[in-house]
């Protein structure tokens, strides 16, 4: 069953067409990578899926439901969680506090002036569980703004996890990271995919990460869909090579 079906979406900003007639179908439990040279419209595409922007045309169907007009915060409620190219976290709060907000919102407590002792205990349990999964337990009481880049990304992923989503959207999770951090994030994403069977869509520039993780790859070039297939198919695809090499030349 297709968890996400994006059909012929386009997005125009005045006369600039950032995304042109892109379609994508992702099955439950799949890890899909979206790649393409700079300016291919990948982040704009993500913005359309997550509700940050509304498409000029086309539709987004999530779990059988048309969400094209649904605002961003509603899409979170029905199961989409997203990380951003530039890490979006709460810098002056601790890791624990960051995740706590996510857990409380997911649990439906966001308007509560008060929670019971047992509810608070359950919240704490879920926070600990999430932090263990991303490996930040030892840094739980550090201010997120003071952490290293890689740890900040882990914290952001922890928040996304705490939302108990059906679909993860990771926008260049390893952007700006060195080899060691890239390795750790890749391993984390792999764990989430393999061990927990999450459905993940990933924008990535680092090809090692892409080929290491992806079930299927979608290639965009200048806002248009260029190719789609397994890692081997894409690696062998001449049009894809030309698009990347063409940019370099």
């Amino acid at each position, binding site marked *: 069953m297709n968890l996400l079906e994006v059909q012929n979406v386009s997005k125009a900003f005045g006369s600039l067409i950032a995304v042109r007639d892109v379609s994508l179908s992702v099955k439950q439990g799949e890890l899909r990578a979206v790649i393409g040279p700079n300016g291919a419209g990948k982040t704009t595409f993500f913005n359309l899926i*997550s509700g940050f922007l509304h498409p000029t045309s086309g539709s987004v169907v999530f779990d059988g439901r048309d969400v094209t007009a649904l605002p*961003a*915060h*509603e899409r*979170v*409620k029905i199961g989409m*969680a*997203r990380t*951003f190219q530039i890490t*979006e*976290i*709460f*810098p*002056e*709060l601790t890791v624990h*506090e960051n995740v*706590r*907000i*996510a857990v*409380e*919102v*997911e649990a439906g*407590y*966001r*308007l*509560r*002036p*008060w*929670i019971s002792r047992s509810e608070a205990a359950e919240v704490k349990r879920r926070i600990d569980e999430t932090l263990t999964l991303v490996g930040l337990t030892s840094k739980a009481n550090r201010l997120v703004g003071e952490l290293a880049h890689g740890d900040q990304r882990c914290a952001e992923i922890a*928040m996304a996890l705490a*939302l108990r989503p059906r679909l993860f959207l990771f926008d260049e999770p390893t952007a700006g990271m060195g080899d060691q951090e890239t390795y750790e994030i890749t391993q984390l994403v792999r764990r989430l995919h393999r061990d927990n069977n999450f459905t993940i869509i990933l924008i990535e520039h680092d090809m090692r990460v892409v080929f290491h993780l992806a079930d299927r790859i979608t290639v965009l070039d200048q806002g248009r869909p260029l190719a789609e297939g397994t890692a081997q198919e894409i690696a062998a695809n001449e049009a894809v090579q030309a698009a990347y090499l063409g940019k370099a030349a």
Partner: protein
Amino acid sequence: MSDRDSARKLIMLACIWAALVLAPYWMPPLGGYTALGTRVLVLGLAAMSVNFLLGFTGVLSFGHAAYFGLGAYGAGFALKFLAPSSPLSLLMGMLLGGVAGALLGTLLVRRRGVYFAMVTIAFGQVFYYIAFQWSSLTGGDDGLRGFSRQPLDFGLFSIDILSNANNFYYFVLVCFAIIVAVMSFILHSPFGRTMVAIRENERRARFLGIPVERHIWIAFTLSCFFMAFAGALYALLNNFADPKGLHFSQSGDFVMMAVMGGMRNFWGPLLGAAVFVVLQDYLSSVTVNWMSFVGMLFVLVVLFFPRGLLGVIRPKSDA
């Protein structure tokens, strides 16, 4: 939070309350007088109400004096036309300002940042203008007069808060304590944490599933209720309500108190109010040009002291 932090917080809290409870005794020897202390409490409460939005939700509300003024007029109207009851006047004032805030808030939360500030100021001025023009009801520029705070009637005995400054001080202190407790309670709740989330990173808050505009509206409405309550107390303090309390320059004063004392600290605005009130009191008695000095104070604080007095300590989040 570590045990040492908790202990430190408790001690600080105890000191603050001790100072507040004993104010009528340590103020006079220092050249102060009880009514000044009452004034600090009331204006401090107003500054804390503004900070509820400014420091804790990160929202630039600059027209908040409108609700302060509405609270004052509400209390005055209640005492003049409804019943000679101080508690009732407080309730009426709070309702007038709070409901106005709730209604206007629906329009206001559609903007953000500096535009939000502009709109809040402009709307605030509407009430100033009404108070000024509708002189048959409000007394216009002269203000609303002809009422005074009524003794508290507990059936078996009553407390005179009109002529006894100390009694009134403690009455205000009790009211202050109640509102401050409510504020603190909310800030430490899950809802309060969403407020801080919005301040820290609005986009991330939205992408956690928080309907940001709605939460801002709720925070706004709450702060308007608190603000109006402070305004009602102010009317009782002065036995008088005037349009100046609605003017945006009053709003600026409240914001300055919050900034001066430290926006990220719960008690900062109270300290800021104390400093501001004392300074203004002193300045207006020694020079005609006290306005320039207040203006210079604004400039100096902004340029050199933006974290405020209590912000000099490393601000660990209060939520």
